[in-house]
């Protein structure tokens, strides 16, 4: 049985999945029926230092930079529709490769071209993030999951959760923080600049 977290909750990944090295971070969502404009949600991850800022532009793993410089965090590809079962997008994290200066890995999703398409996360249902052991992916007992519920409304980007260091341990925190300013707004909070 997967461990379900509520917003703000955290859990030790080492306790959920002892010996965890290769973590899969799956994000899912189901766009509601709209006026016809397709939904295109993009997952991304930012590797942060102790001050909560991105180590560099290259530590923003997204569709235009699929792997961080260390190779620890890898974006598995962009699903432009969100149609189908299972995770819509996946980011993998090799915890053994994460540089020592990386303290947190924030995982987020944003709606592409949300303003022009007049879309927001209020039109997205069943959003979730789950972290699991890639080396034992079928073991539900090693899954941590956070269902974001239906809280979002006008937000066009959402920080789903983060994996962070706690001493020698790795933990996962459910965040669910929305941004109406889209991807550009999120990344600026973490020290990145889209301009």
């Amino acid at each position, binding site marked *: 049985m997967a461990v379900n977290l509520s917003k703000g909750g955290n859990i030790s990944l080492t306790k959920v999945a002892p010996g965890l090295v290769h973590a899969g971070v799956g994000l899912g969502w189901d766009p509601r029926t709209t006026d016809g404009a397709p939904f295109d949600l993009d997952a991304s991850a930012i590797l942060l230092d102790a001050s909560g800022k991105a180590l560099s532009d290259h530590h923003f793993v997204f569709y235009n930079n699929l792997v*961080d410089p260390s190779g620890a965090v*890898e974006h598995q590809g962009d*699903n432009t529709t969100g149609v189908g079962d299972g995770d819509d997008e*996946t980011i993998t994290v090799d915890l053994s490769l994460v540089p020592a200066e990386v303290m947190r890995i924030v995982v987020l999703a944003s709606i592409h071209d949300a303003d022009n398409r007049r879309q927001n996360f209020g039109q997205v249902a069943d959003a979730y993030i789950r972290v699991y052991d890639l080396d034992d*992916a079928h073991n539900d007992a090693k899954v941590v999951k956070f269902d974001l519920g239906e809280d979002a409304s006008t937000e066009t980007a959402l920080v789903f959760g983060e994996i962070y260091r706690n001493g020698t341990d790795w933990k996962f925190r459910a965040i*669910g923080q929305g941004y109406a300013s889209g991807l550009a707004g999120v990344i600026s909070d973490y020290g990145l600049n889209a301009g």
Partner: protein
Amino acid sequence: MTPAPTHAPAWATPGATRTDLPFLRHRARPRPEPTPEPEPTIERGAVASAPASPLSLDGPAGLDLASPSAPAAPLSLDAPGGLDLAPPDAVASRPSAPASPSAPAAPLSLDGPGAPLSLDGPGAPLSLDGPGAPLSLDGPAALDLSRPDATPAAPFATVTPPPAERNLVHHAAPDSVRNVAVGGGGAPATRHRALPPLLRGFPGVRGAERRVLTPDAPVVMLDRVQSGVGPLRVALASSTPMGMAVAYELDGHEGLLRGPVGGYAPSHHRPVVSLSGTTLDVDLGHVRGLSRFLVMLRAVTFDGTLVVTTLGGARIEVPLAHDGDPGEDLVALSGYVVRGALTLRAEMDVQDDGLRGATAAYGYDEITWRDRDTPVR
């Protein structure tokens, strides 16, 4: 900072109904699936018949762009030897080589034919500081920025929308996305490689900075975040009547949009490149499918400024000042996506052989033409 929790889902409350159970019962489990080979990471449209010569940008030798003798010329990334910046007329047959960021120890030399281009070594950083010295690399396979030959032109008359067959789907999720490699017991196979470092020596632009591109400093490189987030707008600010046309390469397919009506590419449902009047919008959310674009203007007299703006408010300006002959085209700006970074260059190159000649001079040789200004749909 991690925001404090403000809400808890209903199921987290004791006694509340679990709403996630149907989801958990029906959610498909990831299945093991073979993982494809790692993909090349440089965006130039991969041509299947491309020679094996990889694009290597990681060696010790730097790209020297400071030579004052270097003529200005378009940046072409299509040569068999890797990053080919050969003169326009040498780009005619241009099989593309997908770049390999981890290209072996191929020597970083820009002096001989077929030599891989290396821009990352400690030795010689890319320099654009030389007086009047745009990008210059000697040698057939080197970065050649010599000006294309000029030829005659005619006014933009009709608008040709992008060919229907170019309705491309960008960023289609690989099948394995939903069932990422989770093979029992093994480490996840890495399908992507980290992009090689950005080319060095090109000036960047930060925040809401304003940058004017001049003949002495014609190039600016956006970083990967700037190159991948939000729209990029190229708008003409001028009181002189001018027409705009844009050549582009998306997912390896070349096309042309012409004002004043303009059009979309690859489709209006998911436009990556859109032209309306004298305003070009590039959706950087699909930058991985974009290899390059070329902005051309037509007027009797070129006056005003081409203004490029990013989502974050950076403003890059290309002053236009040229008394041309009727029917001439001014190739004002080129954009190339190199290693995930959009590089803009003020070309300011007058062409007089119609759009066909202007685009061909910059290596857009896959566009077919009804006449010198009208591409075939």
